[in-house]
């Protein structure tokens, strides 16, 4: 018997589609099916919709439309950013890659792959609150560094990183600066002009899965990874995902329109959730508590509890939550983010990530608290 998920607290994994995005996409899944690169009226209409979405996205992050490259998602954007600049930089004698230790695997594993293919990779640690160690970053970046990547906000613990200062460190050494702003975009202003490259994903802001973008500041050279028809100024070939791009634009618009009211409301719900958990569960630790965090993120470690059985109990109660990190097979692993923050591995195996969003209600939060408290009690015997 399958439980029915009724309380969704995993917005950091993905978010529900905005009705506005769905409405904007519908014609392009229906009669407006033309290939946007073709040479007739229907194609021009599709291309126009893409360019409108491009303008919306550019305006949302302080970029120019021609700096927006649409991709299949955040992971592809991160891959183009790192690989595409690393190979360019190496031609200039810069073979160093510097990333924070808490990057999303789209960045971290790309950097490690480059490391296995001749690049020098340095992973810079973070403090116990999950914020990059800026002096370690300064030490790691040198005249041989080609690209530095520090995420705008972390996907597991929600900590906001000092990207403007990190960008300064990179640029002072003549290195390119990339930031993965996938998690940040729904919740805080993203300034793409402050970085050389910025990765974004549609589905985290209530857009469709399979859409994303890389913002590349004018003048930054990037090698394409996907070759073909030459779309997106030759940087990302492939027939345009018209509906996905249009949905992305509409979702960004809806998110920006809602954000001012949404953020304080979600923050209050998050605080309510966090305070109740801390009050009712002994041996609980809020990860990243001492840092600026995204308003919707609550990540805790619970002593004597493993994530896997707790998630089963929550699932059975219809609650969608996360352990923060899972391998390809779906098994929980001790999170690399918590490990970098110095959380002992047995405690890290008891991590619970609850991420709220626009449809979260007070009842959702209170019900989740009740089930988490009951689950912990049961598992502690």
């Amino acid at each position, binding site marked *: *018997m*399958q*439980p029915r998920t009724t309380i969704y607290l995993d917005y950091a994994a993905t978010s529900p589609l905005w009705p506005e995005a769905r409405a904007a996409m519908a014609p392009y899944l229906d009669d407006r099916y033309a290939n946007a690169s073709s040479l007739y009226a229907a194609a021009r209409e599709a291309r126009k919709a893409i360019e409108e979405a491009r303008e919306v996205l550019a305006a949302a992050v302080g970029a120019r439309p021609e700096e927006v490259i649409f991709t299949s998602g955040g992971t592809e954007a991160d891959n183009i950013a790192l690989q595409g600049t690393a190979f360019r930089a190496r031609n200039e004698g810069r073979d160093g890659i510097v990333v924070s230790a808490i990057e999303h695997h789209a960045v971290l594993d790309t950097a490690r792959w480059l490391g296995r293919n001749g690049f020098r990779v340095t992973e810079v640690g973070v403090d116990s609150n999950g914020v990059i160690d800026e002096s370690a970053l300064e030490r790691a970046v040198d005249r041989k560094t080609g690209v530095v990547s520090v995420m705008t906000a972390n996907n597991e613990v929600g900590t906001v990183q000092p990207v403007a200062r990190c960008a300064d460190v990179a640029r002072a050494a003549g290195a390119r600066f990339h930031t993965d702003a996938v998690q940040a975009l729904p919740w805080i202003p993203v300034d793409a002009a402050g970085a050389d490259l910025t990765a974004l994903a549609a589905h985290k802001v209530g857009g469709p899965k399979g859409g994303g973008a890389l913002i590349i500041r004018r003048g930054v050279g990037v090698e394409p990874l996907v070759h073909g028809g030459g779309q997106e100024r030759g940087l990302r070939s492939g027939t345009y995902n018209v509906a996905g791009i249009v949905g992305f634009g509409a979702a960004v618009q809806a998110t920006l329109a809602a954000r001012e009211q949404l953020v304080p409301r979600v923050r209050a719900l998050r605080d309510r959730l966090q305070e109740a958990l801390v009050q009712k569960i002994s041996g609980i630790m809020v990860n990243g508590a001492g840092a600026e965090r995204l308003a919707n993120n609550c990540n805790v470690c619970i002593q004597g509890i493993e994530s*896997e*059985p707790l*998630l*089963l*109990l929550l*699932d*059975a109660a219809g609650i969608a939550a996360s352990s923060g990190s899972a*391998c*390809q*097979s*779906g*098994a*929980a*692993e001790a999170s690399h983010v918590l490990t970098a923050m110095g959380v002992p591995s047995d405690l890290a*195996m008891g991590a619970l990530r609850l991420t709220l969003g626009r449809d979260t209600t007070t009842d959702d939060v209170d019900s989740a608290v009740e089930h988490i408290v009951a689950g912990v009690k*049961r*598992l502690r*015997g």
Partner: protein
Amino acid sequence: MRVLAAMSGGVDSSVAAALLVRDGHDVTGVHLRLTDQATPYEGERAHGCCGIADADDARRVAQVLDIPFYVWNFKGAFGRGVVDDFVSEYARGRTPNPCVRCNETVKFGALRERAASLGFDALATGHYARAEHDGDRWRLYRSADRNKDQSYVLARLGQKELARARFPVGGQTKDETRQIARDLSLRTADKPDSYEICFVQDGDAGGFVERSVGSFDVGEIVGTDGAVLGEHAGVHHFTVGQRRGLGINTGSARTYVLEIDAPTNRVIVGPGELLARTGLEAEELRWVSGKPPEQIDSVQVRAHGGVHEAGLLDVDEARASVRFAEPQRGIAPGQLVAFFRGDEVLGGGTIARALR
């Protein structure tokens, strides 16, 4: 009944879960991640019971059965309970059975405890064995399919374990299991049986032990008269009864490992007829009923075959000595000896040494 079904991704555990669903139970599937393994595209070694491809197969079966499904990380319990033991046993010249350890410490150990803490009434696996409740206690029997019988690897389960264990395919043949899987269009229906040790991907147990321990001292291979016939690269490369890969030339193709003497780091070899043993001594005993039986009528000394008519000479809490009706070859210290009376499994212990 709320049942947790352990799903390896093979046909037996797939059908075990399916039969429980058919019988109206509230079934949840779980696949255990036991080791760090390469992803399928990293190399052509995605076999065994714990690869990502197997997790995918188990997940797809759970989808078809419409049951909740989870992949759980049991690498810690597996490493401590199975891999560490495997390495240390080989390093002291013995031949361990990791599947026995896995059933004892992981599936019916850590997993059983987790299932109980989550309120499951039973834990089901795809083993070919039968557990039956008789009066006030549980008894364990060989499966209906004698060719597939796996009661040997369950011989160390006691009352606590069997009380919550379910073996839904234990009463049928493998062919019947495959037919059920085909009828339900389960993608695992025609998946080949696995015989490999799941965490030794290249089949080279000696190499695995070496990578885990580091280097081994070179030792001597000697004949029964003490004459040095050659050198070996570590006792972990040998099993009593082994004939291939000795790396010596004795002029006879019929030279076997007779004994492994770890303290002196010597491997003693000789003709096959000298392998015959009249009995064995077992340690680390576990009895299904919780106490030693009065008598047995047979033992099994390895997972496939090795069933011999035998009786107990002596038994106490710590050790048991067994005499075979006829002398037997291939009694390897470290392997499990399972004790039987008819089809009933009475318990199991580790072979400490063979008796002459």
